[in-house]
């Protein structure tokens, strides 16, 4: 499973550490609705429980997001993947990788874990059908040896979901 293999990571920089502590404090005051932070003492890897919004295909279902922060967060995007089992969605691969531009090319340091979570929930909520991406098998095969989704050259072709 891709999720268990951690990319060769360097420890968080002091700036990244400070910023994450602020984000975590803010999260504890007002967590985004539908999300639950699973308490751990590892600031560099957050596991977050997502509950599908009512009235959507994923209503009541829970999934787990794993967020890994790079040394130079927030200058670089965090790596966000779904832990097994990943929700069935046209932009979510069975290995948990998520095709969402803000996680890669369109990342900005003004985004937070909270805003990323909201974008992911919005992506889930607007899903027209519970299905895998058309190229799921090929993509997952290519990622076998625990490749990070940040190393994928994503092609963001669908702005409706």
């Amino acid at each position, binding site marked *: 499973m891709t999720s268990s293999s951690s990319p060769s990571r360097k420890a968080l920089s002091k700036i990244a550490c400070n*910023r994450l502590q602020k984000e975590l404090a803010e999260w504890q005051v007002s967590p985004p609705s539908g999300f639950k932070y699973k308490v751990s003492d590892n600031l560099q890897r957050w596991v977050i429980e997502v509950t599908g919004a009512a009235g959507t295909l994923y209503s009541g279902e829970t999934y787990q997001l794993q967020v890994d922060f790079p040394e130079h967060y927030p200058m670089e995007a965090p790596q966000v993947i779904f832990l097994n089992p990943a929700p069935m969605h046209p932009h979510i691969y069975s290995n948990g990788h998520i095709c969402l*531009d803000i996680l890669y090319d*369109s990342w900005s340091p003004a985004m937070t874990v909270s805003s990323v979570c909201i974008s992911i929930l919005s992506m889930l909520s607007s899903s027209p059908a519970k299905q895998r991406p058309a190229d799921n098998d090929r993509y997952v095969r290519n990622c076998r040896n625990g490749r990070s989704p940040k190393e994928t050259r994503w092609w963001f072709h669908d702005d409706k979901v």
Partner: protein
Amino acid sequence: MQEAGSSGFDANMVIILAALLCVLICALGLTSLIRCAVQCASGLSPAAATPVPAAATAGLRKKELRRIPVEVYGAKSRVPDTECAICLGDFADGDKVRVLPRCHHGFHVRCIDTWLAAHTSCPTCRDSITSVEDGVAGADATPTAGGDQR
């Protein structure tokens, strides 16, 4: 006798040193050649697994960066924000805040300069920064601006 010996020794020394110098030059040339080849290879096949941030080369130059005004935060400053969206820290009196000319979003100089070294968009609103001033080239501004990329 003594002198002849030492001069022979000197000649040998010179030859050895020259040979070492040649080897050094060859090694340097070879490493630069290899580095060049590696760079070419990664440039030709960006699909390779090496994570090279696409926008890393498209930042502002130092000269362009210096033209963006810096304010000192305080009661009289005209900084509209109260916190830096990059480090999430509140601005304190005396903090140096760079205010982007078009969208007026302000950030700590240290925070925004790191971002703009590799990007040309405002972290908050994604507004392009390069096209603000006439002297600043806007040619390489588009790749990082705009959220909906194809």
